[in-house]
């Protein structure tokens, strides 16, 4: 009995120790987001104090930063622009990616290796190198600050990486199903839309979420090509700080507003995102 109790205590102790470790990890992972929220809810004056406390004093809690964000800036419009542009663009990216991945993995054709090389090459080339010529061109044809141009840019720029992500799933896709449909007289577009996309819809949705998150988070295109009508949320929050002061609460409120849609998406669809991220490894 005595030994049993001792063993039991040991197990309990180990469990408690593990629970502490889990708590430490969770704090490490989530503290930055907590801190962003905490600063955003504090009066500017109270932040500029050398005594840093975990929570603001009762009298220092303030929604002023959010009031400014939503009244002095068109924050809702910027959020809407971002979500609308990225939603349309991601649909475009994923449809084209899956379609290219399908043709490349299931058909031998002239120039296949060249196409593949071009796609892999484009995955690695930094986006910055296209920015200046694109800007010159867009300025000449008056496409700057247009929703349509942004949808086009984010839509098409997702193609190389997501074709590469989609390829293993297409490789695994049973060729017999495609051949069967062919015998029934279906063409390749019908096969893609009626057979392949429904069969891989979970994977497709997972990749959709990842591309959505990355495009929504991007600063380079949104900063360069949108300023007013089509202005997106990431460049907008950089301006909450103002030119001559460093109002931390406003900057933090901007951060909170910008990340909220993504955090919600992650909480709701975490299982999909996890599959999408872990599905593509090297064989």
């Amino acid at each position, binding site marked *: 009995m005595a030994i049993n109790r001792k063993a039991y205590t040991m197990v309990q102790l180990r469990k408690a120790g*593990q629970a502490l470790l*889990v708590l430490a*990890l*969770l704090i490490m*992972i*989530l503290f*930055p987001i907590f801190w*962003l929220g905490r600063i955003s809810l504090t009066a500017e004056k109270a932040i500029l*104090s*050398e005594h*840093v406390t975990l929570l603001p004093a009762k009298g220092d809690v303030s929604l002023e930063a959010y009031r400014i964000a939503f009244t002095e800036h068109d924050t809702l419009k910027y959020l809407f622009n971002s979500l609308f542009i990225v939603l349309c663009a991601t649909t475009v990216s994923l449809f*084209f990616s899956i*379609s*290219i991945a399908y*043709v490349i993995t299931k058909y031998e054709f002239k120039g296949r290796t060249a*196409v593949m*090389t071009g796609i*892999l*090459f*484009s*995955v*690695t*080339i*930094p*986006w*910055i*190198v*296209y*920015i*200046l*010529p694109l*800007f*010159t*061109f867009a300025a000449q044809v008056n496409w700057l600050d247009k929703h349509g141009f942004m949808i086009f*840019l984010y839509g*098409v*720029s997702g193609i*190389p990486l997501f074709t590469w992500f989609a390829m293993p799933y297409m*490789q695994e896709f049973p060729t017999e199903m495609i051949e069967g449909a062919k015998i029934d007289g279906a063409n*390749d577009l019908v096969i893609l839309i009626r057979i392949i996309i429904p069969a891989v819809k979970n994977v497709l949705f997972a990749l959709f979420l990842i591309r959505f998150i990355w495009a*929504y*988070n991007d*600063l*380079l295109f949104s900063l360069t090509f949108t300023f007013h009508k089509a202005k997106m949320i*990431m460049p907008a*929050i*950089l301006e909450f700080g103002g030119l001559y002061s*460093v109002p*931390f609460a406003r*900057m*933090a409120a901007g*951060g909170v507003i*910008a*990340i909220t849609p993504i*955090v919600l998406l992650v909480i709701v669809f975490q299982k999909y995102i*996890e599959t999408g991220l*872990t599905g*593509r490894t*090297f*064989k």
Partner: protein
Amino acid sequence: MEKKYMFILLWFPLLLFVAAFALPLFYGVLLSLKDTSGNFVGVTNYVSVLTDQRFWGSLGFTFFFAFVVVGLMTTLGLLFGVFINHLTVGQNLVKSSMLIPWAISLTAWGLLGQIVFSKDYGIVNHLLMVIGLIDKPVVWLADPGNAKFAIIASRIYKDVWFGTLLFLVARQGISGELYEEAKVSGATGRFCLWHITIPLLRPTILYVGIINMIFSLHEFDQVYALTKGGPGFATETAAMGIYKHGMLFGNYEIAIAQSILWSIFIGTLAVIIFVPGQLRSLRNGNK
């Protein structure tokens, strides 16, 4: 496959990409050979870029940044992943919260960086003083060395969880029998890590390394939001340098010559390191 569908499904989207990105890049090559008023000046712009210390400095920092970030994200990710795999309580809770810092934007993260690294009011200095590592506030973002450290550390802090998640999932896929057998023959935990876990995680290690490498060589967002490349040029990545020259200072020709050179450097690396292995796996997958 019929020509019509080949065009719709393959060539049309590829043409869109070529029109949107490859053509502007060729257009850029033309522009880089001209001066401000459009006169042909040959390689003059390239000569001024290649003799510019600041350009080489930004390339140097980009590679330094990328190697440190990739090295640490892979190593720490692997250790965290293996460690979290051993937790019996709360494993799923940790696993699902890891996605949150990974998913939020580097722009917001950079703004948060400005707040936490503030000399007098930031929590980083406060915590370091509380645990006694420093006795007076450190200047983070206005000091070249410290700013480099801050930008690298905060990038790793945010995105180490991507690798952690991939390693955790890959580790969970390794059969427990292997470890039991090893244990029966008297192998230590460290032996198992080096001779079972790491060899079997090799594909994941490569994948995490390459993805992180590609993204860190593109680094722009966090630098722009946190330091704008400063103080001086200390934290200027290649992308930041090109953006500054081209969009902020109006040195358009210089910036475009830098863009072309930068794409040649990265493209060469890609062709040597990344493309051959991927082509091979495509061919093997089709057998």
